[in-house]
Structures are given as C-alpha cells and as structure tokens.
C-alpha cells in the first residue's frame, strides 16, 4: 500500500515538475506554428521586457512562501517605490533616487516583518491579512504622493539616461533588464541553496517550532524574507517604470496575485518548507508566455484571463493535492 503511494507520488511529482515545462513547450510550439511572428526579435524582446518586473516580484515572493508565510503588500510597495523614485530623480539625481527607491522597498518589507513579529503572528492567515492591510497603506501613500496623477518621467526631468538604459538598453541580444534578472536569479539561487540563511528560511517554513528549538534564528529569517520581498518588489518597479518611462500610483495592481500564482504554478507549495527560485522562474515564464501567446493567437484579453485562471486551477489541482 505504501509502496504504491510512493510510486504514484514520485510519478506525480515527476509529471508535475515537468508539467510546467511541458505546458510551456506546448504553448510555444502551438503559437510558433499558428503565428510565426512569435519568433520575431520584436516579440522576443517584448517577452523579455514583460518578464522582468513580474519575475523580480515572484522571486521575492518565493522566499516568503518557502518560509511559510505570504506577502500581499508587494503591489503597494511596487507602486510606492515607482512614484517615489521617479519623484526623487530631479532633487537628488538618478542613481541616488534609484538607491533610495530600493531602500524604500526593503524598508516597506522590513516594516511588514516587524508588524508580524511584534504581533506574535504564527500563521500564514494572520500574515495574509496584515500584509493585505499594508498593501492598502503603501498604495495609499503612492496615490497621495502623486495626487493620483501618473508621473511621466520625461515631463519631470531631462535626466533619465540611467533608467532608459535599464528599460530599453540591450547588451547583444539580451535586454538589460533580462541581464539584471539573470544576476538576481544566480544570486538568489545561491542564497537559497547554499547559504545558512537560505537553509534557515527553509527550516522555518518546514517546522517553525522545531527550528527555533534547534537554535535556528526564526525571527531573523522572517525579517529577511519580508525585507527581501520588498526589495525585489522595488527592483520590479524600477524595471517596469524604466521600460514605460511612466510611474502610475496604481501600477503595482495585480502583481501580488500574479507573483503568488507564478510561485505556486512553478511548483513551490504554499505550505512552505520547500521550493526553489528556479521553479518560480518557470512559473513566471508560463504566465508571461500565456499572455503573449494568447495575444498573438488572437484571444481577447478577457478570454486570456479565463484561460489563465483555468490552467492555473488545473495546475494547482494536479500539483498541490495533499497526500492522500
């Protein structure tokens, strides 16, 4: 009885490990055949550019989820960092503004962890609602900062070269933003699998109580995952507004849901303890490709949501069933 279950689970996880890859391959093949424009350099560049912001947020979210928590505030952080950074370009210069923006993101995340730790919140549900509330708070600050207006970078300042470089620049066939993503991925993969703190985060998600008793710095791990999430949201925001050269105070909307879906579809369990940034990359790729391919195939944006939602329900159902 037990052997049969283990066999099924191994087969199941083999299947679902590669389910995302299979889905991506299928999607790409079908699109390539029906609409060869898919492979045009313009489209591929487009994909790379869209990939940037979501991948940043999703990478950050991965660690929060591995640690057994969740972060719904990234949308607010995203928007806030975007508008604040853009607003600061003129007063303090591009690079300082960039640094300030990233610090702000990290600070937002850090503050979330302070709230969670001081409240003694142990469950994912408590973290869910606290970060949901903070999403409203950060989002409100973004709206207040610009008075609801969309900031057009070109109107505000003449010096946007750095950001233009990030948003539009290319190095060979790769966009700058893709390279930034690559660097982040390598660093975060290394962090997750090879560092003590990475392991501590895994253990915290696996069994908080046991980890604490064994001397693992659980509280510090919680601070790290949220601060990192905020920082990555900030990076994503920079990625985004650098590309479109505008910063809207609501531009973060939807990123939290998409990030969570990217992580979960990629194969990281919401229960925490295990997961990988590599899987999240696949999940993000699937989500981005779905939009791109379905667009090219002439599917209306709304049917895209339907397809996206439907595929996600399917993927989660197959992958996340609790052991029978």
């Amino acid at each position, binding site marked *: 009885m*037990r052997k049969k279950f283990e066999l099924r689970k191994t087969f199941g996880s083999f299947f679902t490990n590669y389910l995302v890859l299979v889905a991506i391959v299928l999607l790409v093949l079908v699109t390539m055949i029906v609409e060869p424009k898919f492979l045009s350099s313009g489209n591929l560049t487009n994909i790379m550019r869209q990939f940037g912001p979501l991948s940043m947020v999703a990478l950050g979210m991965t660690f929060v989820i591995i640690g057994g928590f969740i972060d719904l505030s990234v949308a607010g952080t995203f928007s806030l960092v975007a508008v604040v950074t853009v607003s600061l370009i003129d007063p303090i210069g591009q690079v300082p503004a960039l640094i300030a923006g990233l610090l702000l993101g990290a600070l937002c995340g850090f503050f979330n962890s302070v709230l969670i730790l001081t409240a003694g919140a142990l469950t994912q549900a408590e973290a869910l609602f606290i970060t949901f509330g903070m999403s409203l708070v950060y989002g409100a600050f973004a709206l207040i900062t610009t008075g609801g207006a969309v900031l057009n970078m070109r109107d505000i300042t003449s010096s946007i070269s750095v950001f233009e470089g990030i948003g539009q620049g290319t190095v060979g066939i790769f966009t700058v933003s893709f390279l930034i993503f690559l660097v982040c991925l390598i660093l975060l993969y290394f962090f997750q*699998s*090879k*560092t*003590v*703190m*990475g*392991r*501590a985060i*895994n*253990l915290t998600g*696996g*069994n908080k*109580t*046991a*980890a*604490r*008793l*064994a*001397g*693992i*710095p659980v509280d510090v791990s919680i601070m790290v995952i949220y601060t990192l999430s905020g920082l990555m949201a900030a990076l994503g925001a920079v990625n985004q507004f650098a590309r479109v050269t505008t910063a809207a105070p609501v531009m973060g909307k939807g990123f939290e849901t998409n990030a969570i879906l990217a992580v979960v579809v990629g194969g990281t369990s919401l229960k925490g*303890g*295990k997961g990988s940034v590599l899987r999240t990359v696949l999940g993000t790729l699937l989500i981005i490709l779905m939009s791109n391919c379905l667009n090219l195939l002439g599917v209306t944006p709304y049917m895209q949501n339907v397809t996206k939602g439907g595929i996600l329900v399917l993927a989660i159902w197959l992958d996340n069933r609790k052991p029978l």
Partner: protein
Amino acid sequence: MSTISDEILSVKDISKAFPGVKALDNVSFSVRRGTVHGLVGENGAGKSTLMKILSGVYPKDSGTIIFDGKKIESTTPIKSMNSGLAIIYQELNLVNSLSVGENVFLGRFSQMGGMRGIHSKARVLLDSIDCRIDTHRLVDELSVSEKQMVEIAKALSFESKLIIMDEPSSSLTCDEMKELAKIIRQLKGQGISIIYISHKLDEIFDFCDIVTIMRDGQIIDTKATAELTRGEMISDMVGRTIENEYPERPQNVGETLMEVKSINTRKLHNISFEVRKGEILGLVGLVGAGRTEIVRAIFGADKARGHEIKLDGKTVIIRKPIQAINAGLGFVSEDRKLQGLVLPFSVEQNISMGNLDKVAKHGVLRRAAEKEIADKYVRALNIKTPTIKTKVQSLSGGNQQKCIIGRWLETGPRVFIMDEPTRGIDVGAKYEIYMLMKEIAEKEGAIILISSELPEVLNMSNRVLTIFEGRITGEFDPQMVSADQVMESALGLCSLEVHERAQEI
C-alpha cells in the same frame, strides 16, 4: 467460573500487526459486568492498540469480540459509543472551541433538542457525577480534570455499559484524584463496568477488582487484585530482571556544573537546584507537574523572568534557545514529531540543522561537511535508514529519535536535557540510548532526564528530584530508596489518603 452472561466484554484471540511490528498476538480476556478491571503493561505492551480496536479506531486483523452479548465485527468510534462502549483517551477527544454541553452531545445536536436540550441534558449528566461546571463554558478554559468530567458525562450520555479509561490520573492533582475515585465508585454502583489502564500500580490495587497484565502484545495473566502481590505484578509486566535492562550508572560525579535559581512562572514556584558534572539527574513527577516547564524555562524555550542560571560558576543569560545552545545546553524535547524534527526533510538536514555553523564557512553551506556529519552519526548511533537523503518521516520512532540525538551530540552540550527520550521506542533501541547517555555523562557533561517510566528514571539517574504541582518536593538517591518512596513524594503526601479512600470502594 463465571457464566458468559456475566461478561460485558469477551475478547478472543485478537491479533493486530502494523508494518514491522506485531502489536497484539492472540490476545484473550474478558471483563465481568459491574467490575473495575485494571489493565497494566509497559509502554508498547499493546494496551492502547487493544483499546483502539475495541473502540473502533483500528480494525482487528483476526479474532472475535463479544460485547454485551453481541458479536462485533467491524465498528467505528461512533458505532462503538452507541452500542455502549465508551473510551476516555489520555489525550481527550474534545473540541476546544466549543462549549461543554456541545462536546457532550457532539454530533447529536438535533436529536437532543437543539441548544436548549443539549445544555439541560448535559447539566443533568454533570450533576449526576457531582460536577458543577457551567455547561456553557468553553472546553478550552477547563483544567484537565474538568475535561475528564466532560468526557465521563459524554460516556454516560451514551448510556455506556463499559467505560475504558486510559491513564486517567496522569495529570490530576491529589484532590482531583479523590474526585475521580468517587466517580468510579459511583459508576460501579450503577452497574457500569470500567477498564482502568494505568501505570500507577497503587491505583490498580486500590480501585480494581481484577487486573490483566500485558507484555509485548500478549496477555500474561488475569487475576483478582487481592490475590496478587505488587512484586508479582511487576515481574509479570517486565518479564525479566531489571538489572540487565540498564547500564551501570555514571560513576564519577563531580562538582557543580550548573546552578538553577528561582524559576517562577504561572506554573512553577521557586524552582532551584543544581546539576553536577558527570551525573544523570532525573526529574520525576506526574504529567502536568511541571517537569517539562522547568527544562523549557532553563532552555529559554518559554518565557520566565527573574531566575538565574550559572554554568561553571558564571551567570549566563538565556532568553532564547540559541543562547542556551551557545552556553552549552542541549534539549531533546518530548514531542519529536512536532517539536524536534522537520518531518519532510532528510536525515542529513535534520541532523545538520542544529549545527549549521559547523557545516558552513562564512555563511556558505558546505555539502561535504554536512554529509560527513550525517554519516558520522548514522554510523555511531546505528541509525537505520536507506540513505542520509531519506525523509525522516519514513523512519521508525527510535531512529527518528536517534537523528535528533545525533544533532545535539554534534553541538557538544555540557548539560544535555532529555525529555522522554525513549518514548515509543523498542527495547533494543532504548538500551542503545541509555549507553549514549552514560557516555555523555562520563565525558564530564551532565544529563537532566525526564521520564514517565519510573524504572527507567530510577535506574539511570544518580540523583532524582521529585516535582509536584510546580514545586520540588524531594531529592533522592535512587540506590538508597524504594520506588514507592519516590512516587509518594512525586504524588505529594496525599497518596496515603487516596489509598484509604479507595479502600472504601
């Protein structure tokens, strides 16, 4: 010889096997109506498996059960309750977030006439056992003894003819024990039969008319308590002379290694004691007396204020486990599944998690070092596992425990706290762990041992402290006193009174 209709329960040739272990081997016994029937045996003797089969939690592999004249083939917990067989578990089967009344009639809301019906009927039941708890109170707020009353009321609500009580007295205070004794007397008077499972031999002799002794999944004997002596019962339970079961105690006990002064918490009162180099110090007491609370306070796992801990004469500040570990303490907690292991993680990771600083350089993990440590302990402790990458959840209890011990051994603690280290572990593995403990003590460390198995703690310890209701009530040298004396101190001075009261049954 009793006639069949005298028997409320007759069990014949019941066998039950789990993967790797035969829990019950052709077990047969019967319970006469209106008697209090004791069931004794060491941990792992099969008592709880047998009771779970009777109450419908597990199916039996073979054998027959006749209850109240009817043959029982397969049953579920609720069917069993409905037919008149109730069981009160040690862990208590109540929903904490619901009221007393609702718990008594859980699942029978409309049958009993809704909220009003439930509460009035529950009131009647509780009154019949002289219990004054308000039925509207949430179970969460009750003490263990009060929760037991709720369970008894629940059993009575099914008009139970046989009530099985599994270790009912392990968490009770003296007064509460007297209450329970009174209730048992009352139930017996109403013609209800009781199976009383306990490892407190005094209670068996006090309350039970007949006792069945189990060992290693078999029934050894069933006899009237009046015809049995304590010594005979113990040797039936144990089946071998105790001396071979435990290694020699550590010999060279030295000076004070650790001093603990004035731990005061909600539950503990002025706990102060010392631990000496090279010794095994045992903490004896009932479940709930405060033993685990004491060690958790020392280890920084629970909040406590105003106490002082000194190691080698120097004060150390311990407010969190990591500080305790750095100061040289180790802690094997009593619940290895919830508090010790990360079940879905590998053997290797469970061992290394306490030693990440040792397997890393500048914050980077070195896989080779991690593997080395894991291999070392798999060998040294004889941990049976396919590979070090195997998930610990698939290991047996004993091997799981060894993983935790291996983790702590690597940290090289000077004071090693072990809370129920051999719980749920087979005899062979137990001996291995005992030898380990001796080795640790002999390397100039010390062990604080908490165990509910009196023979174990008495045979392993150089010194024993008895804890009762949050206080240290005595200090003994196990080689100089009898188990009875130690137990009496652990039960407070009331055991005599309970004994006298029980004689009136």
